[in-house]
């Protein structure tokens, strides 16, 4: 089985993040990690490869530094990688990202594409659906469980109040939540082996994508203004003078919490 996992490098959501002057995330000076949800996608891809005897190809679109994330994913056990790298991609919106990734995916012809349900930086959460549309394949989004057999994929689609069982034929794109598995750590042997695994780099020209349709130049959305989140307000302290219960209820009602 030809398995593709989409991997995006993002600034660590646990660390301080900054925007640059043009409203894009400062990736250069950030602690860069694999988008958390994508680690689950990689794990799911590796498990699928183990059971079906397939290979996992990583696909990423991102700057030079994204090779760090590729290497980490390769050392977890993925077999090879495709990196779309082009200076014109800086500032790409979700639409443009999906255009480029769709072109790249067409060069691979995957049976199944696994990706995170959302990235921790953009949090658009729309790429899986956009890619399904562009590639005209099945979209199975928000999985907490995945099974693949006889040319079809079945997921448990995670909802706030339960789950749906959704099935579709391959080829398909499946986006996953962090409830689906427990990602493995790479091993030292994996790190050594990753050094000799093939990584193909493609530019926009290689993919026949017009640079003016992507990046800041072709963005369909624009960050007009941004401001840091205001610091958290001090909480309300209720001291019990015999009426704490009433005060608590009053507070909850006022905040529309009950």
């Amino acid at each position, binding site marked *: 089985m030809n398995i593709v996992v989409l991997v995006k490098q993002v600034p660590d959501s646990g660390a301080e993040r900054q925007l640059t002057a043009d409203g894009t995330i400062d990736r250069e000076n950030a602690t860069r990690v694999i988008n958390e949800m994508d680690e689950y996608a990689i794990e799911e891809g590796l498990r699928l490869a183990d059971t079906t005897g397939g290979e996992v190809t990583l696909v990423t679109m991102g700057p030079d530094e994204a090779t760090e994330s590729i290497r980490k994913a390769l050392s977890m056990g993925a077999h090879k990688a495709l990196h779309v790298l082009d200076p014109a991609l800086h500032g790409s919106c979700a639409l443009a990202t999906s255009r480029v990734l769709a072109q790249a995916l067409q060069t691979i012809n995957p049976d199944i594409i696994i990706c995170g349900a959302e990235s921790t930086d953009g949090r658009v959460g729309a790429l899986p659906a956009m890619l399904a549309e562009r590639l005209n394949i099945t979209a199975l989004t928000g999985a907490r469980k995945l099974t693949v057999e006889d040319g079809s994929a079945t997921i448990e689609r995670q909802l706030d109040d339960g789950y749906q069982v959704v099935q579709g034929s391959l080829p398909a794109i499946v986006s996953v939540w962090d409830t689906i598995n427990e990602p493995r750590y790479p091993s030292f*042997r994996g*790190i050594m082996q990753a050094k000799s695994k093939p990584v193909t780099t493609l530019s926009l020209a290689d993919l026949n994508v017009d640079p003016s349709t992507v990046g800041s130049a072709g963005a369909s959305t624009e960050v007009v203004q941004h401001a840091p989140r205001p610091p958290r307000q001090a909480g309300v302290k209720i001291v019990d003078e015999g009426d704490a219960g009433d005060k608590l209820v009053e507070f909850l009602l006022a905040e529309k919490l009950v």
Partner: protein
Amino acid sequence: MSIAVSGEREELRKLVAEFARNEIAPVIGDFYERGEFPYDIIAGLGQLGVFGLPFPEEVGGSGGDYFTFCLALEEIAKVDSSVAITIEASVGLGAMPIYRFGTPEQRERWLPKLLAGEMLGGFGLTEPGGGSDAGSTQTRAVVDGDEWVINGSKAFITNSGTRITGFVTVSAVTGTKPDGRKEISTIIVPAGTPGMTVGKEYSKVGWRASDTHELAFDDCRVPLSNLLGERGRGYAQFLEMLDEGRIAISAVATGLAQGCVDESVKYSHERQAFGRPIGANQALAFQIADMEMRAHTARLGYYDAAARLLAGEPFKKQAAIAKLYSSDVAVQNARAATQVHGGYGFMNEFPVARAWRDCKIFEIGEGTNEVQRMLIARELGLPQ
């Protein structure tokens, strides 16, 4: 002499740091408090390949080197040194002598599981009657048919009583040399061998998530083929192992010292006094700067000894210096870090409290600091 932390070494270092932060730090305090051995953490570090780092792939290793192994130990010890010492002992005292001196059969039997971290090994040298004077071994082994019969006892043996302990290699007197001195050999005693009694876990001041027992041998019989290395070369062999082990111990001590810096930096931002973070007081900032200076120089010490080891150059003196200096630094930094944390530093739930309890053993284990000074003096050719 210099050595580079780059490429796969740096990737491994980061990986172990991530594991330590995510998998060890959140839970180790409770294990430590209960004096419980953290089996899952050890298994996880086994899967990372840490136990196999200084061994080639042919014998089941990860194909790294001794320096990379030390880097991993430092990262683990930044979070908890009792976990680091479990690995150090199993690799340095359990696996390494078998890799170095073992027969093909011994290697095949023990190395694969040891290097995967699925089994732990230990080395029993110290006896209730003395450790520094290693030649004074009282434990005896005599040949009876095709077996060794061992009698005696060993004290403070790391990794000797876990569920996954495979064996302990013990030093024992096996005869008298032509010059009248004791003939000392080393013999592998598999866990569960009748006649070997594992005493109950010591109540230790520190390293509470590591496993340490007294062992008693009462007509304990093992096959002659369990002799490790040459008969009568046991003493020389384990001294050679200890030289190398000191570099690893130094990496663990350096990790503890650096962990103290990291915790102190964090706390001095968070904690407020007199309307500003305590770190803004120069008196405190200087203490932390000194801690960083000491941890850094301790690191240079073990890097240098490791570089010599890898280059095949003599490193005995440098390893002794690294061990001596870094253990001193561990104690100084643990003391300073506790001070930075004020009253909370005296509370067990703070990581620096573990550092405080653990630091002292570095001046004692694997050759006391007096013994290190003896070694350095001897290397300098001082009159004996």
